[in-house]
């Protein structure tokens, strides 16, 4: 077991990084403040305009450079919008003209004013745009002060970048192999830096929290584990040694496991399982293919809707879905219809003030309530279905009526598009995400109407055990191997088998190699997981038999606690896969 890390954050991109810190200290930008004379006003304003011009040129270059390598150029859109906006320039110029401030000071003041203004707006999606304005203004300030934006361009090789937050433009300048890792104070698994780090295969830990940049001296020795979220600053020799070993093992195994990526996941006794990938944004598609996903088992459409002011329109959704369907074809893509609770949607769509959003207006319920939003999404999906193999998945279903509603809407939209002569795929499946205990209990009824079932273990588990895993007091109870949870899953699998429809699993339970045999024994035909988990699961499946998996299942079926089940499963699997279980599964 690893000794406790000094700081921990969100495990954002797998891998081990060891190296000196390269600390991006934003506060180094000291804004010069002085008054200018009337005679210098016009030249000062010209200087400001030139700096805007230079910034625009610089950002455009970075963007086109990124697009050339197929990376997300569109994340710069908001920044360009603000760079072009007259308010920022004119108000700054006014301060130069009327208050006789130098350009840097004037711009900084204008930034403060805008940030306060945005902060005061109640809507969180507008408030967040503050960051974009901040990024843009910082670059203009740097241009004004004749500083090359320090960015990440000129840094030495092999460093671990430490920053409060990294703008896409910063990360975009990094070349593969140049940076050993990223560590940031802010961020989540889906922030720009996390997504880009994963696609560059650079280990990253984000969301460590405030004070990191202060704490880490430039050049300090760091050890980072992007799978566990651990960060060590100047670790003692025994920790350093352990990280060296983790790194060697990680690289060795990663290379070894990639050989399994393109092989079918078929057990020794001939049972074929399909391994699919869960994704949230299209930038993850190349990863899926590289790790050998045989389809997308869950495309969460929420990211299209989050962190923005307005809903994406039909055209934008259509383009997003089409891109993924095309990139993955002829493999299938399961697109889940919008599954957001009141806390994540633009405020006008969802209901405010729900005391218990997890059990509130979300998933199919919200789609029923806001039918027009649902229809736009279905229309975009069906139009995109002409470009690949689409399977639509309805979240949070707990009754037959809700499924029927989804089916009726899909049929209605299909007829409408048909009348307009729009091209569509003709084998679009409609499935149910089984994630409420009620849906699990009526799985055999749902299975008669749905084309497939997909078990969403994250929510099924939270509702079954009545455990909110975000609540630190009860998180220890959140245990996928709970006998009650296993029995529900078994029930769903039986229902699927009887009705002859495919049963898949797309929750995090499928990621963990420890669960692999149990899921194999239950006969789940499709497992969908994080792309990087696929090679290991594939290897285990290819080297196992369903027979031995069933033996294990028979053994654990009557055990009364998750802990016992976990112990027996870990025993059985680590006997068969000693190397993988020692090295790859970091937690016990």
């Amino acid at each position, binding site marked *: 077991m690893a000794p406790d890390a000094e700081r921990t954050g969100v495990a954002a991109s797998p891998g081990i990084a060891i190296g000196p810190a390269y600390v991006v200290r934003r506060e180094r930008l000291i804004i010069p403040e002085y008054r200018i004379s009337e005679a210098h006003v016009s030249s000062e304003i010209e200087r400001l305009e030139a700096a805007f011009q230079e910034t625009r040129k610089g950002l455009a270059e970075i963007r086109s450079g990124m697009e050339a390598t197929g990376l997300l150029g569109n994340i710069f859109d908001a920044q360009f919008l603000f760079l072009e906006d007259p308010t920022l320039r004119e108000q700054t110029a006014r301060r130069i003209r009327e208050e006789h401030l130098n350009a840097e000071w004037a711009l900084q003041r204008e930034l403060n004013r805008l940030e306060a203004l945005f902060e005061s707006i109640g*809507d969180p999606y*507008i408030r967040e745009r503050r960051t974009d304005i901040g990024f843009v203004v910082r670059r203009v300030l740097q241009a004004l002060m004749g500083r090359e934006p320090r960015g990440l361009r000129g840094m030495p090789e092999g460093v671990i970048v430490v920053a409060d937050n990294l703008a896409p433009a910063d990360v975009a300048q990094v070349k593969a192999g140049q940076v050993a890792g990223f560590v940031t104070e802010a961020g989540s698994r889906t922030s720009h830096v996390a997504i880009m780090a994963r696609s560059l295969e650079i280990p990253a830990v984000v969301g460590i929290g405030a004070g990191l940049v202060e704490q880490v001296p430039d050049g300090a020795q760091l050890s980072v584990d992007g799978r566990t979220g651990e960060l060590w600053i100047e670790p003692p020799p025994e920790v350093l040694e352990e990280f060296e070993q983790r790194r060697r093992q990680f690289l060795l195994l990663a290379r070894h496991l990639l050989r399994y990526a393109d092989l079918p996941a078929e057990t020794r006794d001939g049972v074929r399982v399909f391994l699919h990938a869960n994704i949230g944004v299209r930038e993850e598609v190349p990863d899926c293919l590289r790790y050998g996903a045989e389809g997308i088992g869950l495309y969460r459409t929420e990211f299209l809707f989050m962190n923005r002011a*307005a809903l994406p329109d039909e055209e934008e959704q259509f383009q997003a879905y089409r891109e993924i369907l095309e990139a993955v074809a002829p493999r299938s893509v399961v697109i889940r219809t919008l599954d957001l609770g009141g806390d994540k949607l633009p405020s006008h769509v969802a209901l405010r003030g729900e005391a218990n959003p997890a059990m509130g207006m979300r998933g199919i319920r919200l789609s029923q309530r806001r039918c027009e939003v649902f229809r736009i999404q279905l229309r975009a999906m069906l139009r995109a279905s002409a470009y690949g193999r689409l399977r639509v998945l309805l979240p949070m279903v707990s009754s037959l009526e809700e499924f029927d509603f989804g089916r009726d809407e899909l049929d209605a939209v299909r007829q409408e598009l048909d009348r307009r002569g729009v091209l569509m795929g003709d084998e679009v499946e409609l499935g149910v995400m089984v994630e409420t205990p009620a849906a699990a209990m009526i799985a055999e009824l749902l299975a008669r109407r749905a084309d497939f079932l997909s078990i969403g273990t994250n929510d099924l588990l939270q509702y079954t055990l009545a455990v909110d895993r975000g609540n630190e007091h009860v998180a220890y109870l959140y245990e996928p191997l709970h006998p009650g949870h296993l029995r529900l899953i078994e029930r769903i699998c039986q229902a699927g088998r009887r009705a002859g429809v495919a049963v898949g699993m797309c929750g995090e339970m499928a990621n963990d190699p420890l669960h692999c045999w149990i899921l194999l024994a239950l006969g789940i035909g499709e497992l969908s997981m994080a792309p990087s988990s696929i090679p290991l699961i594939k290897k285990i499946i290819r080297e196992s038999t369903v027979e031995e998996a069933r033996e294990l299942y028979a053994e654990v079926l009557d055990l009364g606690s998750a802990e016992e089940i976990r112990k027996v499963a870990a025993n059985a699997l680590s006997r068969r896969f000693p190397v993988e279980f020692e090295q790859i599964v970091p937690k016990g």
Partner: protein
Amino acid sequence: MRKEAECVIQNELGLHLRAAAAFVKVADRFQSDISMFRDEDEANGKSIIALVTLAASRGTAVRIVADGPDADDAVAALTHLIQVDFGEDS
């Protein structure tokens, strides 16, 4: 020449980033200076930042003022845009 008109923001999401961007796109086609007023607050009609910070949600009454050679056309085009909910789908 100065021209003005009152209208009510009716789209679902109010004057958000996208709606503001759509507004600026139309406003930029005209030579006239364009402002949007919400009560006493004035925003430059050609600035997304200024428009967004008006925080005009659905149901807010705003006044569009154009001043310049093509003020008539500008006000007509912009009130139309608001009436069709900035071309949003929902």
